[in-house]
């Protein structure tokens, strides 16, 4: 019985946005890094602030706090680097968070049809009920898979 329970447990990263905590499947989280310079250039994707440079990779920065808590973060302590998958391609995104993150093992309860599209499921942890986030519903991305990206005549292009 215990074995069966353990096998249904997954790893999640708990992240803090203001006063609230949310979760992401650990498999989607790559790294937690200190905030760094945001490079801005003209674009028409209002949800994005720009990109950050991390180990040679340019990662779009998207503050999801306002959508989830109703207000922007006062303090950004870290950027959580997460991945979203479009077919076989991984797309990275940086999410500012306001506190330390925590890795936990827990069993996820699936979201119901009444839940918001950004809710992938629910965790019960430390007396709290925590939303597991569906990043693709919170951060901009292709409605349908539009790969490959419009790269032409260049061999080294990759995301």
């Amino acid at each position, binding site marked *: 019985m215990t074995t069966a329970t353990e096998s249904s447990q997954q790893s999640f990263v708990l992240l803090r946005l203001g006063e609230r905590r949310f979760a992401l499947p650990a498999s989607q989280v790559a790294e937690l890094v200190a905030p760094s310079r945001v490079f801005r250039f*003209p674009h028409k994707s209002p949800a994005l602030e720009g990109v950050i440079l991390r180990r040679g990779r*340019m990662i779009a920065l998207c503050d999801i706090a306002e959508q989830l808590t109703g207000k922007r973060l006062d303090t950004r302590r870290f950027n959580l680097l997460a991945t979203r998958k479009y077919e076989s391609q991984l797309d990275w995104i940086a999410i500012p968070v306001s506190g330390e993150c925590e890795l936990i093992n827990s069993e996820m309860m699936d979201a119901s049809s009444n839940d918001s599209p950004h809710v992938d499921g629910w965790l019960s942890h430390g007396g709290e009920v925590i939303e597991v986030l569906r990043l693709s519903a919170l951060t901009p991305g292709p409605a349908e898979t539009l790969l490959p990206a419009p790269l032409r005549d260049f061999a080294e292009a990759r995301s």
Partner: protein
Amino acid sequence: MNFPSADKSHQPRTEQIILFRVSGQTFAISSASVQEVRSVDNIAGMARDLPESHLKKVRHSIRRGDRTLYIVNAAIHFGLQPQPASLVFFLRRTRAALLIDGIEKMTTMTRLQALSQAFQGEERNWYRGLTALDQAVVPVVYPEGFLSLEELTLLEAAQSSADTRLASSDNHGAQVQ
């Protein structure tokens, strides 16, 4: 011994680029895409007004050989605050000439990263991708992205109207802005 041909594709390729400034922003363009660079003063006498252009970013055209090129204000194209432009890029394989503020330098990029899928606006037509140079991120423009097919159709109509007007009056060169 024969090595698999796949090995070749892993060798880093490089590309010569020109870094240019528009309203305080730095962009890159493949130097192979730029046919000629001229000063605005130099072409002012050759540019023709397009008073009926519905595109705010294109107010002038210029005749080059048997083709009409449309002069695109890069600042307006990118939604930036326009500043007095000083140079014009004549681009290969497009009908666009590009008004820019200045050239920073020519350099080489070794890596072009695809624009993240998070970018879903017009920028997907503007940029081939991003490159990192000296710990800074620079968008690499897509030369064909300055004028869409629809925009070209509108401009051709405006040009046709301007030509008709020119035939009936004796208009001379316009001031490029």
